[in-house]
């Protein structure tokens, strides 16, 4: 039914009433989620970013398999080796032209005066590379023992450092894969914690109003009045240095969440205040729903997409906070690896001038942060499919 016809016949005769617009039946039965997805798909940049984040999630889950080496792998023969170029064929081998995935090995030269060793790719030294090669053993998902890696040298002792190595002779790519798991999960878990706190307190504050609202708002203001960076620094510096890295990881995440929840609590409160006077809320109460059911079953779903948008927009802040803390040496510490820990290596100019590839983790941070922002923007625009 076209719009024109719809206007001409605002309501059919009783015999045939109840006929919804039959032309767009798909839209009529589409759930909120589907409508948001249809709107989101139109946002190209957000869609690409979403795929990128999806790929990062796979890296998080399968990081042991994807990383060519273990996170403790250290090759003291090759410290600060430059990145290698992945090659598909070989022309200077002993048999002339030859297919085969490989990288060039390294030759080392030592500066006679500074005694510094520098590495150069050596086309004569061919390192064959294969998919699903045998490498170091690990436990997939922490359970299944396996020793296959997605990509690696056919001979596990050969050097394959696609993004170069660190000053300690660790494979930058493998480290980056492990760091992605840590940094992304700090962001995601931290934001989830903050949201749990923010949604519950914001909902209670906005729904009940009165003195409850007053108390919660003053607490939020108190949290907001404390400057975030000194608070992080203080809390992180108070942690004992000999703490295990897992405990440290969770404590850092919690600290970040404690600072981040206030903004969301305010947003949720505002929504609840606005929705409270809607008639569907009154009617839900009259239907016999308890207040909790009205809040979390009737009201919250009506702006869940806004919440998801706000969520993806606040993950970058969290990731950046963790990165800066770790970079300063106050967040996570080696042997734990995060993007910030990795960047510590790149903080000295003398090192960086000879090994610019150490900045690659910084590039990954930028990409991840931008991707979350684009996805958040896309979701925010798509969040209200009924507005037109």
């Amino acid at each position: 039914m076209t719009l024109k016809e719809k206007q001409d016949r605002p309501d059919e005769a009783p015999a045939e009433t109840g006929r919804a617009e039959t032309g767009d039946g798909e839209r009529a039965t589409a759930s909120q989620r589907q409508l948001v997805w249809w709107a989101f798909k139109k946002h190209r940049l957000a869609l690409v970013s979403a795929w990128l984040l999806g790929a990062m999630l796979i890296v998080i889950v399968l990081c042991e398999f994807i990383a060519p080496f273990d996170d403790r792998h250290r090759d003291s023969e090759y410290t600060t080796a430059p990145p290698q170029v992945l090659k598909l064929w070989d022309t200077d081998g002993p048999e002339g032209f030859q297919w085969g995935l490989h990288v060039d090995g390294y030759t080392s030269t030592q500066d006679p005066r500074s005694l510094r060793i520098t590495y150069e790719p050596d086309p004569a030294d061919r390192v064959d590379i294969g998919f699903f090669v045998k490498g170091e053993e690990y436990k997939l998902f922490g359970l299944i023992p396996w020793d296959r890696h997605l990509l690696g040298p056919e001979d596990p002792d050969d050097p394959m450092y696609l993004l170069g190595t660190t000053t300690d002779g660790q494979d930058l790519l493998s480290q980056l894969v492990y760091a992605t798991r840590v940094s992304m999960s700090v962001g995601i878990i931290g934001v989830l914690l903050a949201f749990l706190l923010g949604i519950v307190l914001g909902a209670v504050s906005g729904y009940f109003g009165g003195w409850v609202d007053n108390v919660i708002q003053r607490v939020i203001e108190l949290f907001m009045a404390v400057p975030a960076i000194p608070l992080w620094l203080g809390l992180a510096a108070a942690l004992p240095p000999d703490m295990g890295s897992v405990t440290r990881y969770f404590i850092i995440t919690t600290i970040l969440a404690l600072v981040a929840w206030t903004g969301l609590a305010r947003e949720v409160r505002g929504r609840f205040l606005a929705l409270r006077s809607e008639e569907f809320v009154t009617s839900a109460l009259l239907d016999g729903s308890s207040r909790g059911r009205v809040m979390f079953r009737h009201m919250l779903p009506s702006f869940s997409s806004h919440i998801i948008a706000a969520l993806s927009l606040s993950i970058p802040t969290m990731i950046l906070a963790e990165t800066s803390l770790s970079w300063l040496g106050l967040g996570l510490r080696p042997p734990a690896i995060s993007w910030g820990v990795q960047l510590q290596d790149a903080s000295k100019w003398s090192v960086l001038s000879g090994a610019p590839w150490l900045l690659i983790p910084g590039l990954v941070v930028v990409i991840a942060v931008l991707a979350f922002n684009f996805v958040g923007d896309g979701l925010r625009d798509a969040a209200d499919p009924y507005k037109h």
Partner: protein
Amino acid sequence: MSEPMLEINDLHVRFPVRRNMFGRVTVENHAVSGVDLTLMPGETLGLVGESGCGKTTLGRTIVGAQEATSGSIRYDGQDLTQLKHRQRGRYRRQIRMVFQDPFSSLNPRMTLRQIIGDPLVTTGEAKGSELEDRVAEMMRRVGLSPEYMDRYPHAFSGGQRQRVNIARALIVRPKLVVADEPVSALDVSVRAQILNLLRELQEEFGLTYLFISHDLSVVENIADRVAVMYFGKIVELADTAELYERPSHPYTEALMSAVPIPDPSRRGRTGRVLLPDDLPDPTNPPPGCAFASRCRYAEAGRCDAGTVEFEDGVRCVRTGELELQGIVKTDGVH
């Protein structure tokens, strides 16, 4: 004469407007100030009045969406004003409300199945296929095809949405339905359909209606008795035909004169009573008759002092002295 179904006694509802620094209410808005009303089983009582007169607040207080400040609402031997949200259980199902706005009263994130079935789900009365059967049954009764059960409200027109609202109210088999301006938001063409539907359902389920409206022609069409509300008080209560022919309160007369007359030849026979826009301040009600400031029959010294009692169905000092003009019935078809 049978027992009244609902008895409202001296009901007051006030809203805090301003508080002092200790949280004490210093300024209050008197939305309902001393309403007495009884509803007989099976009747339709129309409640009319201009916007802001407290009629919606009265309706909301009856269904429990608003707390009363004082007074009582007796239903089935129980004073409803004394019940907390959790205790209302049974009464919540026997007294239901149909909302005015068909758009904001339906949760856009729920399908018709969820919306209409919600009262049954919260009480645990029906589950699974029984729930589905009852929702389908109710949808058919209000003229909606059950095949649209899984659609969302945005796919429906205003009239259809109001049918959903009615289905939601009636699915728990209530006895009393408070209909708060159920047709005001609808096109005139759809209005008659919904009114007919309400009338059919009343007969079928033996319902009692409190029909709140600002539209006198709609109320005339559906109500057995009509209560006129002004400034938080009932100013006149009478059988519909009597009220429309011989109003006893000057305010009722003014309302009547505002009803458009479809027949051009009859227009102009009765002059329109234009009311000055001089509503009293609801936070500070004047002594005497609240309508005195706008009433063309008001007499200084008599109308603006003391309290005016509600006697013989009218709240006016000059009852019996005035010749008031009702609506001249057009002959034949209406």
